[in-house]
C-alpha cells in the first residue's frame, strides 16, 4: 500500500494542475486580504480570518474535480489496466487513490491555514488579536480552527459521494456536476430541508442532513434544526460515508474485473 501511495502522490505532484491550483489558492487568499484593505466596507477582517479567507470554497472545487477525474483520466490514458495487473488488488489500487486525495486535501487545508495566519500578521496585525472572543465564546483562532474542521468534514462527506459517482461513470462530468451542485444546494436549501424535517421527522436521516455534521460539531445548537444529537449525526455521517465508499469499491471491481 505504501508503494501505491507513493506512486499516486508522485503522479499528483507531477500533474501541472496541482502546482497551478496551489499557487492560485495562495493568490486567491492574498487577493481577498488586499480586497478587504481596498474596500474595507465589503468584508470584516475577523470574518475573513474565521473563514480562512474563503480558501475552503476553492479547495472544494479542486478536490471534487480531482476526485471525479481520478478514474476517468486513467481510463483516458489507458493506464488503469496497467495499474490493475500488478501484484496489488483492485481495492488497494482504488483506496490508494482515495487516500492520496485525502492527503492532498489535508495539504491544501494546511497551506490555507498557514496563509491565513500569515495574512493576519501582515495585513491585520493591528485590527484584532488572536485571542479576540467571538460569538461562540471562543478565542478567534480557536473558532477559525473549528470552522476549518467543519468545512473539512463537509468536504470529506461530499468527496465520498463524488468518488462513488466517479466509479459509476466513465465520464467525469456527472460526478463534477453533482458534487459541485450538492455543495451549493446544501448551502442554499438547508433551510428548506430543515422545514421538511420539522414536518416529517424521518427525513432527518437523509444523507444531505449529514453534511451538517461539521457545522453541528462547531455549533451544537444546530441539533434543533437537524433533529439529530451529535452522536446520531456522527453515526449517520460515518455510516453514509462508509456506504458510499464500499459501494464505490464494489462498483469499481465489477466494472474493471470482468
Amino acid at each position, binding site marked *: 500500500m505504501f*508503494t501505491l501511495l507513493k506512486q499516486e502522490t508522485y503522479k499528483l505532484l*507531477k500533474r*501541472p494542475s496541482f502546482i497551478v491550483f496551489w499557487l492560485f489558492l495562495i493568490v486567491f487568499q492574498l487577493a481577498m486580504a488586499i480586497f478587504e484593505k481596498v474596500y474595507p466596507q465589503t468584508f470584516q477582517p475577523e470574518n475573513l480570518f474565521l473563514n480562512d479567507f474563503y480558501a475552503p470554497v476553492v479547495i472544494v472545487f479542486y478536490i471534487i474535480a480531482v476526485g471525479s477525474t481520478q478514474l476517468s483520466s486513467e481510463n483516458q*490514458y*489507458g493506464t488503469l489496466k*496497467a495499474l490493475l*495487473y500488478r501484484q496489488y*488488488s483492485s481495492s488497494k489500487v482504488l483506496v490508494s487513490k482515495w487516500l492520496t486525495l485525502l492527503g492532498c486535501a489535508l495539504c491544501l487545508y494546511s497551506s490555507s491555514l498557514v496563509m491565513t495566519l500569515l495574512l493576519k500578521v501582515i495585513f491585520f496585525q493591528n485590527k484584532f488579536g488572536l485571542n479576540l472572543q467571538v460569538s461562540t465564546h471562543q478565542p478567534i483562532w480557536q473558532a477559525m480552527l473549528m470552522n476549518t474542521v467543519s468545512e473539512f468534514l463537509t468536504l470529506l462527506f461530499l468527496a465520498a459521494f463524488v468518488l462513488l459517482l466517479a466509479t459509476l461513470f466513465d465520464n467525469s462530468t456527472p460526478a463534477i456536476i453533482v458534487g459541485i451542485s450538492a455543495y451549493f444546494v446544501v448551502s442554499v436549501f438547508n433551510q428548506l430541508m430543515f422545514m421538511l424535517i420539522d414536518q416529517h421527522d424521518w427525513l432527518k436521516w437523509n444523507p444531505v442532513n449529514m453534511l451538517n455534521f461539521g457545522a453541528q460539531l462547531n455549533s451544537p445548537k444546530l441539533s434543533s434544526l437537524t433533529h439529530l444529537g451529535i452522536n446520531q449525526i456522527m453515526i449517520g455521517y460515518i455510516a453514509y460515508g462508509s456506504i458510499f465508499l464500499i459501494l464505490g469499491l464494489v462498483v469499481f471491481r465489477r466494472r474493471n*474485473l*470482468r
Partner: protein
Amino acid sequence: MLKVNNLDKWFGKKQVLHQISFEIKPGRVVGLIGANGAGKTTIMKTILGISSFTGDIRLNDQKITIDSHDALKDVGALIEYPGLYPYLTGREQLYLFTRGNDRRAKVDKVIEEMHLTTYADAKAKHYSLGMKQKLGIALALVNKPSLVILDEPMNGLDPKATRELRELILQKKAEGTSFLISSHILSELQKVADDVVIINHGHLVTSNTMSAVLARNESYLLLQTDQNNKVAQLLQQRGYQVAVEEDSVKVARDSIQDMTALLHAVLDQNIAIHDIHEQQDDLENSLLGIIE
C-alpha cells in the same frame, strides 16, 4: 513456472475460452497465436488477474485469481496498447513503476536496452506510436520480472526496432526470463519462440514446441526452367507430386526418393534449369494448416 489448467471464461452466456491448458517453463519463449477474437488477449488478462475465470492458474505454485495478485510481483506485462501518462516523461513513467533500492540504475538500464535514450526525457504526449510501444515494453521489463507477457509487442515498431526487440527478448531469455508473446507477425514469432500455443475460437488447438509444429510442414523443391509446364507434366508422369507456381515447378520433397533421377529426367529432355532451391513452409502455413 506458469501452469494454466482447464481455463474456462464466460462473457455473460457466451463461453469464450474452453478448457485451455498449457505451461510455460523457465527461460522459454512461448508464442500465443490464433486469429482475431480467438481469445489470446483474454487468456493474458486471466493470467494477469484482471479477468475472472474458472480453472486454475499458478505462477511458481502460487495461485492467481482476480482477488489474489501476489504472484504477479514477478510478472511484467504489456496488454493491448501501452497506457502512458501524457504529462510524465518516459524516464518518469519508468521511475514511477520501478521497485527496489536501485531504481535509477534499473531505469537507466532499460532505457539503454530499449534504445529510448534520445527521447526518455521528453513528455509522453509528444511520442509517436512506435515510441509509446517501446516505452510500454520497457515498463514491462524494468523490474526484471521472471515472466514477461507481451500482447502484440511489434505493433507500431519499425524494422530496426523490431530486430532490436527480438534481440533483447533472446538476451533476456538467455538470462532466464520466460515470455508469453502474442503476435500476428508470425515470421517474427517464429524467430524467437521455443514453444507455441495455438488457440482457435477459444479452444486450444495445440501446445507444443515450435520445432514440432514446424515439423508438420511440407518442404518443396522449386525448379525454375525454360519449360515449366513440360517439366511438370514429365515429373507427374513419373509419380512426383508436382504443381506449377508462377515461374517455377514445385515438387513435394516427400515424393523425391532420388534427386539424381529427378534431375536426369529433366536434363535428358534438353530442358535448361535456371534455378533450383528448397522451400520449407513457415509458421504461417503451419497455423493455417492446423486451424483449417
